[in-house]
């Protein structure tokens, strides 16, 4: 029999946490700080709307690009939140999570050999999706001394004549790093100078704890060259509803709609109706969740300082990214031993790129009580490591 598989697909490495997941699943008394989704339930009014539309029998396909009411609400929301004005008729597509948006944006824009700049550590899908779209991923390793922000110099140094797209993953999973207006300004200059396009993954935009989130699309001349990706999973605690959206120039969005139409048809109808309710009336619920995350964030920063774990203060998402370089072991060794010895699961920084070596991603999508217990175990573990030395 011939090889049934595509070389392109087999060349892609599977996600690096599989074995962790398997071990943790078999450990009933393990505490995990490894989750990348909110611990809050979807606000009740959103769930109620989902139930109501099911009862009403609103269970048919929507138009490919999404429900009109939802697209209108998305445009109003972006106008309100990041001051970018999109036309709901041809500059918005509702997708199956932000992750579909990333995939089809890359597929709509790349020709074989085009280079995509991917700052890392960052979410795991940018690189494989680039490969699947025949692009060439070029990693920009971000640095701890810059609090894992992208600098204009790093960007400039990675650009070649083949560079077409820059992925901007801020607020960042796994580092919790954000980029302010001042941080983005020099990036915008370089992007324009080299005529690049930007895929801006702003899925954590609602979880920004130092002033309002700024979108790179809001800079003059940037809306024309940016695909803004966002969704409902994180800010609205709607991960399982699988709903996101992409906004950008009509020329690109229309090609993305084409791929989406053939591959997906439309995003889940029920989720789309629920999302209309989310955007219309859940500002208070979102604010309350943000405040809770912010309290946990302050708690962890304080605790890490107390136990002497080196860490910059993150201002976005729900992750903190401490350094474990003092212990002289790899992130994976550390995470494995921590799991075995103290039954605390955390994701090694290397799951998000080689430059995550020496760091851990710790999620604070957990109650303060859970965090206290986990920190207690972590403290015991590192005290032991320090005594071993």
């Amino acid at each position, binding site marked *: 029999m011939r090889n049934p598989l595509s070389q392109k697909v087999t060349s892609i490495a599977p996600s690096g*946490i599989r074995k962790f997941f398997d071990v943790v699943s078999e450990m009933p008394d*393990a505490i995990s700080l490894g*989750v990348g989704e909110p611990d809050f339930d979807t606000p009740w009014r959103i769930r109620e709307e989902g139930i109501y539309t099911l009862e009403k029998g609103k269970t048919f396909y929507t138009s490919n690009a999404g429900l009109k009411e939802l697209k209108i609400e998305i445009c109003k929301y972006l106008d309100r939140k990041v001051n970018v004005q999109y036309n709901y008729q041809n500059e918005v597509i509702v997708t199956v999570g932000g992750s579909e948006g990333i995939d089809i944006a890359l597929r709509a824009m790349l020709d074989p050999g085009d280079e995509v700049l991917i700052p890392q550590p960052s979410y795991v899908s940018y690189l494989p999706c680039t490969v699947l779209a025949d692009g060439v991923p070029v990693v920009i390793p971000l640095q701890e001394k810059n609090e894992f922000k992208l600098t204009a110099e790093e960007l400039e140094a990675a650009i070649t004549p083949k560079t077409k797209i820059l992925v901007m993953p801020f607020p960042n999973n796994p580092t919790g790093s954000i980029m302010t207006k001042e941080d983005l300004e020099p990036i915008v200059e370089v992007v324009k100078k080299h005529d690049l396009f930007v895929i801006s993954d702003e899925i954590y935009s609602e979880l920004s704890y130092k002033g309002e989130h700024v979108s790179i699309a809001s800079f003059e001349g940037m809306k024309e060259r940016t695909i803004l990706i966002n969704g409902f999973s994180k800010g609205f605690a709607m991960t399982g509803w699988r709903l996101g959206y992409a906004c950008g120039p009509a020329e690109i969005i229309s090609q993305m709609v084409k791929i989406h139409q053939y591959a997906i048809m439309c995003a889940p109808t029920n989720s789309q109706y629920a999302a209309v309710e989310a955007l219309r009336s859940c500002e208070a619920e979102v604010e309350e969740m943000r*405040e809770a995350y912010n*309290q946990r964030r*302050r708690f962890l920063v304080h605790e890490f300082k107390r136990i002497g774990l080196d860490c910059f203060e993150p201002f976005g998402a729900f992750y903190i990214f401490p350094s474990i370089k003092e212990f002289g072991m790899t992130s994976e060794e550390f995470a494995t031993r921590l799991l075995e010895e103290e039954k605390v699961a955390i994701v090694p920084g290397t799951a998000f790129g080689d430059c995550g070596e020496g760091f851990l991603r710790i999620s604070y999508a957990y109650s303060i009580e859970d965090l206290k217990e986990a920190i207690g175990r972590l403290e015991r573990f590192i005290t032991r490591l320090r005594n071993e030395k």
Partner: protein
Amino acid sequence: MRTQILKYIEKKSKVDLGELAVLLGTDEVTVANEIAEMEKEKIICGYHTLIDWDKAGVESVTALIEVRVTPQRNQGFDKIAERIYNYPEVSAVYLISGAYDLLVTLEGKTLKEVSQFVSDKLSPVDSVLSTATHFILKKYKDHGTILVKKSKPERMPVTL
């Protein structure tokens, strides 16, 4: 800062002040001072415990009583409300708009005790025109806390 403190302790009054200070991004002295001030100003009126008496195995009945009254000259409803709220078994008294005037929450050990209170104490009060007593059969949610058992859907332990 005051609103943040209040929002937090409204749901969780049993808190270590040092920890609360960390959560709110301030220092312990500030939190302690603000709370002391607010206690003095009667913004914070008390600290109570939400108890599921059923689970504790202690017999108790809660009743909501609608009371229609004739307001008294110059004193409106306040005087009559005072006569009612001074009874220790009365846990709340509200002036209500609509079909009746006062809503009284009453805690008693037994149905009999509650009905006795209504017939012996409440109804004979001058200017009480009528009462309607509703006994609470089950508390699903009280003070923003859901009391009935709620199954927590499990997240997967590790996701990226």
